[in-house]
């Protein structure tokens, strides 16, 4: 009886088994089956099936399902192999290519980190969208002047009048000397906060109870690092600080984690609000004009902040006498917007700038664009050499789609290399970047899942974008032409590439011009004549010096001959003049316009002469006129202009305190505040107390010993504080640190953009030289000189550059003027940044392409002409 083996197991076997084993296995199985089927067919069938199943194991199963060996696997392997070979053959081009892309990508990565961090401020609080800061603004000289702060009393009234406010928090920042056993440290990051502070803001505690920690007087919550500073590894809870020179004690009730970097304030000590009652004068709590508190509110979910803002004017009129809605304003700032958008006269810490975030985003995109354009240009330029390969592939049956696939694969590979390199670059320059950007990014930040995802997306997008054009161009080669060696692409393709180069030129020249303008403005701010002599001026905070001893102090200073002058004032110069006073004045056209005010600065007799302010009229305060100590003022020019006085000397002016003063002098306007602000109408009033800063002019000859002398004298008068000083010119320059940083970061990215663009230009000139090989050969045969040929090659680029200039000039002009518009005092944009940018770009381009062009021009025409 001839019995055949069971069908289904056999089918199963044929389905899964490797084809090269199948025949043997099938044969053997059938033979075994044939032997056994005579004895017992059932058993034989069963055994056959069982045997088949036993072959269902890794060694015998063919590649299945997703792993099914598609025949393009081999093709991809070939693509990779060819890519590697090409990479190796044209190592320089490839490295330029990858390096350019990596540079661009590294820039973007860092800028992305920066922007992401800037945008993340204060978002870590659980209900950050419900928290607002109540900021205020005063009408000063016809403009609203915003402040981040408010008074204690105002906050009380707000809480009572606005039902939608769930919680209200007052924060008062301060600095104080803390003493614990031998340790005595001036702490500058302390704040008086209310007991619900830790409920509204999410600052996790390491130890202590968040609901109890700030309840009651004399409690303090300290940060982890402050705890380490005072107590090392010992427990901090229950320890007691002496503060305010023995005025009060503070018991540590909790230890919190250090406030995260992306918070708009950072405090090491949170002192319970109750403590404030003991240490502050009563008027702090009753005077609505004493702006000591930063007021934060948490509103009911779904509350519209605009609705609260709309009710503020009525609230002010009803409750905040002497203020009214025409001279005082309250407004809400969303907590998360404070860091980037708030720029008021009083901020807890210097804030960021939304403008910078925008600028850097644009620069990042520009740089990436240049890098991608580069890649396209270089790849397409190199592609000519691969025309034969493309032709061969087409002849062997590659469809256009396959070639696109191939070049995209290559693009992915290059981009991948670039990204690895970019990662390396970013990590290695992170430290430098941190210094510039004022951040503390660590390298592991780059490996957050979120960032990795962005990198991956960027990888795919960049690879697709920069690979798209070369792959489309290359895949369009006609096999016959390309095999013949005349891989000339269409005219339109070249126009497109020229367009890309023009774009690169526009961006890089625009960046050159813009960074020069930024530098110019910064230089202008730094060097503008301020109307005073800020050189060799030493500024000393008086701290706890007995103010009645000031004259004695000054006399002691003058015992050294190198001390040329000394004056005091209540404000730090440079600095924002906070104090302002309403006034009435002689001969004034009394108009209905309320809220007229002037800034007021308290000075001693010698201040104006020490800083060398120039008098227009009248005289300085003097000891010879006893009335000066109580009834004289000096005005600045702007004040006189506001009063519309022709002959100011001897006229009277009545200030907010109800006293009348006689004007004895007029000083020329000088910049007390930074150049970001206009010179305000200012009254200088002679005052023996409330003075906080001494300004000492010293001889330039012996700075060290002069300062040592000042320090010695100072220490004789102030025993419980350390001597500290600063140079006025440095303080002044420091005000423009933001501009400086901006200018430097800008120029760094400009240089990078130029480098990357040069790489691209180099690629294109190579392309063009190669394409015109025959033309050059013929020209040379017909007698053209190397110089003429070089000129022909370069001409085209100079044209592109000029075209780019034509676009760049007005564009940058417009943007630069826009940017300058935000400065009160600004330099002229001028024409020279544009000229320099164009000339510089031309120079760089000539340098980049000159050698390549010359090389092409010097080539022996035989080489290029004999090939056909």
């Amino acid at each position, binding site marked *: 009886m001839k019995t*055949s083996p069971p069908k289904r197991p056999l089918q199963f076997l044929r389905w899964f088994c490797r084809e090269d*084993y199948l*025949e*043997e*296995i*099938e*044969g*053997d*199985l*059938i*033979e*075994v089956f*044939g*032997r056994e089927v005579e004895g017992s067919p059932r058993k034989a069938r069963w055994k056959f099936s069982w*045997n088949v199943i*036993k*072959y269902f*194991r890794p*060694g*015998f199963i063919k590649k299945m399902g997703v792993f099914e060996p598609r025949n393009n696997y081999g093709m991809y392997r070939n693509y990779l192999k060819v890519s590697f070979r090409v990479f190796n053959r044209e190592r320089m081009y490839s490295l330029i290519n990858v390096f350019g892309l990596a540079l661009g990508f590294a820039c973007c990565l860092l800028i992305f980190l920066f922007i992401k961090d800037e945008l993340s401020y204060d978002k870590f609080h659980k209900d950050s969208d419900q928290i607002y800061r109540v900021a205020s603004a005063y009408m000063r000289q016809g403009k609203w002047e915003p402040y981040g702060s408010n008074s204690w009393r105002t906050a009380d009234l707000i809480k009572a009048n606005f039902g939608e406010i769930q919680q209200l928090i007052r924060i008062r920042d301060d600095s104080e000397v803390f003493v614990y056993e031998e340790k005595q440290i001036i702490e500058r990051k302390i704040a008086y906060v209310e007991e619900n502070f830790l409920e509204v803001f999410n600052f996790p505690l390491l130890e202590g109870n968040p609901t109890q920690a700030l309840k009651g007087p004399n409690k303090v919550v300290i940060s982890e690092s402050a705890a380490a500073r005072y107590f090392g590894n010992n427990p901090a809870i229950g320890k007691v600080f002496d503060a305010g020179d023995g005025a009060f004690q503070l018991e540590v009730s909790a230890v919190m984690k250090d406030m995260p970097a992306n918070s708009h304030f950072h405090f090491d000590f949170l002192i319970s609000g109750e403590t404030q009652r003991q240490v502050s004068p009563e008027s702090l709590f009753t005077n609505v004009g004493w702006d000591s508190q930063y007021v934060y509110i948490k509103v009911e979910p779904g509350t519209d902040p605009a609705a609260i803002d709309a009710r503020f004017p009525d609230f002010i009129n009803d409750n905040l006498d002497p203020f009214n809605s025409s001279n005082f304003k309250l407004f809400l700032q969303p907590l998360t917007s404070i860091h980037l958008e708030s720029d008021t006269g009083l901020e807890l810490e210097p804030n960021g700038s939304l403008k910078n975030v925008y600028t850097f985003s644009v620069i990042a995109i520009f740089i990436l664009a240049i890098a991608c354009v580069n890649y396209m240009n270089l790849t397409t330029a190199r592609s000519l050499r691969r025309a034969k390969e493309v032709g061969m592939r087409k002849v062997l049956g590659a469809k256009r789609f396959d070639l696109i696939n191939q070049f995209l694969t290559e693009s992915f590979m290059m981009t991948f290399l670039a990204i690895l390199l970019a990662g390396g670059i970013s990590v290695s320059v992170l430290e430098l970047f941190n210094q510039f950007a004022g951040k503390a990014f660590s390298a592991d930040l780059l490996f957050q899942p979120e960032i990795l995802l962005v990198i991956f997306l960027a990888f795919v997008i960049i690879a697709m974008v920069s690979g798209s054009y070369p792959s489309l161009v290359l895949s369009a080669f006609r096999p016959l032409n390309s095999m013949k060696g005349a891989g000339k692409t269409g005219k339109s393709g070249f126009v497109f590439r020229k367009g890309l180069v023009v774009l690169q030129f526009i961006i890089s020249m625009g960046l050159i011009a813009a960074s020069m303008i930024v530098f110019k403005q910064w230089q202008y701010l730094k060097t503008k004549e301020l109307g005073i002599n800020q050189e060799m001026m030493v500024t000393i905070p008086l701290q706890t010096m007995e103010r009645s001893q000031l004259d004695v102090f000054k006399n002691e200073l003058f015992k050294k001959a190198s001390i040329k002058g000394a004056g005091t004032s209540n404000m730090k110069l440079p600095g924002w003049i906070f104090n302002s006073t309403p006034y009435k004045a002689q001969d004034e056209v009394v108009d209905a316009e309320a809220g007229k005010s002037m800034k007021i600065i308290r000075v001693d007799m010698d201040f104006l002469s020490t800083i060398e302010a120039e008098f227009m009229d009248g005289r300085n305060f003097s000891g010879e006129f006893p009335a000066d100590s109580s009834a004289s003022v000096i005005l600045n020019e702007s004040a006189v202009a506001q009063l519309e006085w022709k002959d100011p000397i001897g006229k009277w002016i009545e200030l907010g305190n109800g006293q009348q003063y006689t004007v004895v002098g007029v000083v020329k306007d000088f910049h007390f505040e930074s150049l970001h602000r206009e010179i305000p109408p200012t009254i200088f009033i002679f005052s023996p107390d409330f003075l906080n800063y001494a300004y000492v002019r010293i001889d330039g000859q012996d700075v060290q010993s002069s300062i040592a002398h000042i320090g010695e004298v100072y220490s004789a008068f102030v025993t419980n504080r350390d001597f500290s000083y600063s140079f006025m010119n440095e303080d002044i320059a420091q005000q423009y640190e933001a501009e400086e940083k901006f200018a430097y970061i800008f120029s760094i990215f400009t240089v990078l953009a130029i480098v990357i663009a040069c790489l691209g230009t180099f690629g294109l000139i190579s392309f063009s030289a190669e394409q015109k090989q025959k033309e050059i050969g013929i020209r040379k045969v017909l007698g053209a000189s190397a110089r003429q040929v070089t000129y022909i090659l370069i001409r085209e680029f100079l044209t592109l550059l000029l075209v780019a200039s034509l676009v760049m000039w007005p564009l940058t002009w417009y943007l630069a003027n826009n940017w300058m518009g935000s400065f009160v005092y600004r330099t002229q944009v001028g024409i020279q940044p544009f000229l320099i940018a164009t000339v510089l770009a031309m120079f760089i381009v000539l340098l980049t392409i000159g050698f390549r062009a010359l090389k092409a021009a010097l080539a022996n025409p035989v080489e290029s002409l004999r090939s056909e």
Partner: protein
Amino acid sequence: MAQHSLGEFEELVLLMVAALHDEAYGVSILSGLEKELGKSLNISAVHVALKRMEEKDFVKSRFGGITEDRGGRRKKYYVITALGKRVLDEQFALRSNIYNRIPKISFG
């Protein structure tokens, strides 16, 4: 000789391939072994061993002619390679070496 490792069953199959010389294919090896060992074996085990040893270059294979009782499928014949032979020799030498060191006295 890690790369020349030879499992116990592999060794048996290899021995059988060598013994059958030029007549060794799946079924003949199987029945030869079944006879020697006196128990029934699974053909798949033989194939696994053969494939492994082929990868290790202990055996090489070729297709034979078509025969009727296999439903038209060709046999695949295996022969031992020089390397395979050497490995067998080494294995044998190793075993007999150690075997010879067994002191006779212990079974006295």
